[in-house]
């Protein structure tokens, strides 16, 4: 392991141990936070009992749906905008200021339109992720060196094969950044939406535990989300590293 990795691991382990100690010694009250070991223990118990399995599956399904829609939709919209500069100039200011809009404020409206089901939750996750994917798709397509496209033409490639064999791999690093952001935003959007107004899912379960002073369940589920998101991101990180290594970077 590299030195930086050691230090990073040490910082995290040290922080968890410090929290554990502060909670155990009573410096942090039981009503404020439970020790990390108790979180893990309770989470294990909840998972064994299977009480929240339905909520977990539902949240994962919603995140997956929002993520896939954001990546596919963002890629298609980004490619269309890139091919149509006039439309792009028109929507550019909207894209640039998009993340200044607090979507969650529109949640009641979405519920009125779609009903109290998974659709508004998935839609919020999608809306959160799609623009990151659009922006990174545009960025990736902008950065394709024109000389590579010329090279494709000299090799006699038509527009479709040029797109698949030259443009797509050339834009891959930026597309990957878009995909990573889309997964993060999908998680944030879905869980936050569940938190506010849904009647099921992980976000809802945490809010429910919070409202009922059930600290142990609340912290156990929070821990679950942190571990889940870390694992998913680590997976994408390793995948990205592998792609970059193939380019000798």
């Amino acid at each position, binding site marked *: 392991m590299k030195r930086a990795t050691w230090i990073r691991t040490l910082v995290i382990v040290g922080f968890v141990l410090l929290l554990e100690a502060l909670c155990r010694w009573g410096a942090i009250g039981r009503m404020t936070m439970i020790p990390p070991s108790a979180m893990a223990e309770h989470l294990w118990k909840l998972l064994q009992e299977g009480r929240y399995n339905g909520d977990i599956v539902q949240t994962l399904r919603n995140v997956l749906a929002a993520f896939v829609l954001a990546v596919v939709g963002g890629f298609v919209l980004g490619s269309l905008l890139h091919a149509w500069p006039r439309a792009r100039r028109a929507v550019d200011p909207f894209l640039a200021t998009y993340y200044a809009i607090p979507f969650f404020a529109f949640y009641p409206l979405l519920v009125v339109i779609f009903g109290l089901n998974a659709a508004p939750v998935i839609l919020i996750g999608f809306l959160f992720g799609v623009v990151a994917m659009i922006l990174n798709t545009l960025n990736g397509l902008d950065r394709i060196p024109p000389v*590579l496209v010329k090279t494709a033409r*000299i090799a006699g490639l038509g527009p479709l094969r040029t797109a698949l064999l030259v443009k797509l791999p050339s834009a891959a690093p930026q597309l990957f950044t878009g995909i990573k952001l889309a997964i993060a935003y999908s998680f944030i959007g879905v869980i936050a939406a569940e938190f506010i107004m849904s009647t099921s899912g992980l976000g809802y379960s945490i809010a429910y535990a919070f409202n009922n002073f059930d600290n142990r369940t609340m912290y156990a589920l929070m821990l679950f989300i942190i571990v889940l998101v870390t694992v998913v991101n680590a997976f994408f990180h390793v995948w990205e590293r592998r792609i970059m290594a193939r380019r000798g*970077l």
Partner: protein
Amino acid sequence: MHRSSSDAAHAELKGVVRVYPAADGGKVHALGPVDLRLVPGEFYSIVGPSGCGKSTLLDVLAGLSAPTEGEVFFEGQPVAGKVPPGIGVVFQEDASFPWLTVEDNIAFGLRRAGVDGAEVDRRVSWAVGFMGLEDFRRAYPAQLSGGMRQRVCIARTLVTQPRLILLDEPFGALDAQTRLLMGDELLRLWRETGATVMLITHALDEAAMLSDRIGVMSARPGRLIADICTGWPRERDSRIAADEAFGAITSRLWGLLREESLKATGMAGAAR
């Protein structure tokens, strides 16, 4: 010399003009009218001031862009906005694909053209050996120097066995020593393949050293204002730089180009 007045032009531009739409809605007259005949097997270079339309000329000849006026022929067939088989192009910019290894980069065009696997392997091995890339077959472009990457691009062009090789300032991004050595390799490649070569360069010494014949272009809109035959033997290398004639050719080129270069920079000043 290699020039002949027979009809056997390998490639030909007739009255070619290229006009671009400008960003402000006007038009930029980039090139022409230009008439040019390339004789089979000759090494022809074009020198000219910066921004004179040299690269535009190459794009039109290669079929990468269509002329606004005039006609382009390659081996007697009109070139109509499509790159004809038999033409290979090497650019100044790094055109290697960063996601492919050296050998996959070199094989790219052949595989797309549906050449069978054994033949691809044979030609790639030959090109790898010819360009001195044996130790880097499985390396990625990011692991190579600029000169090495340019060799990869030249090898990728060579494996398609082009009969006309167009080079657009291929050594422009390289240091002076590497440029001289690459120039020697280009001469060797030209001799061994028997291809016709058209080299675009801003380096007068490079043109004087490598070419059978040199075309001098005017400031924009680029026209061919002079045609100089060097009279070098076919067997030659960078050592001819010590020859008296080399200095004479270089100074003659500069004599022709100095005024055009001044015009080019003067125009840039007036345009502001």
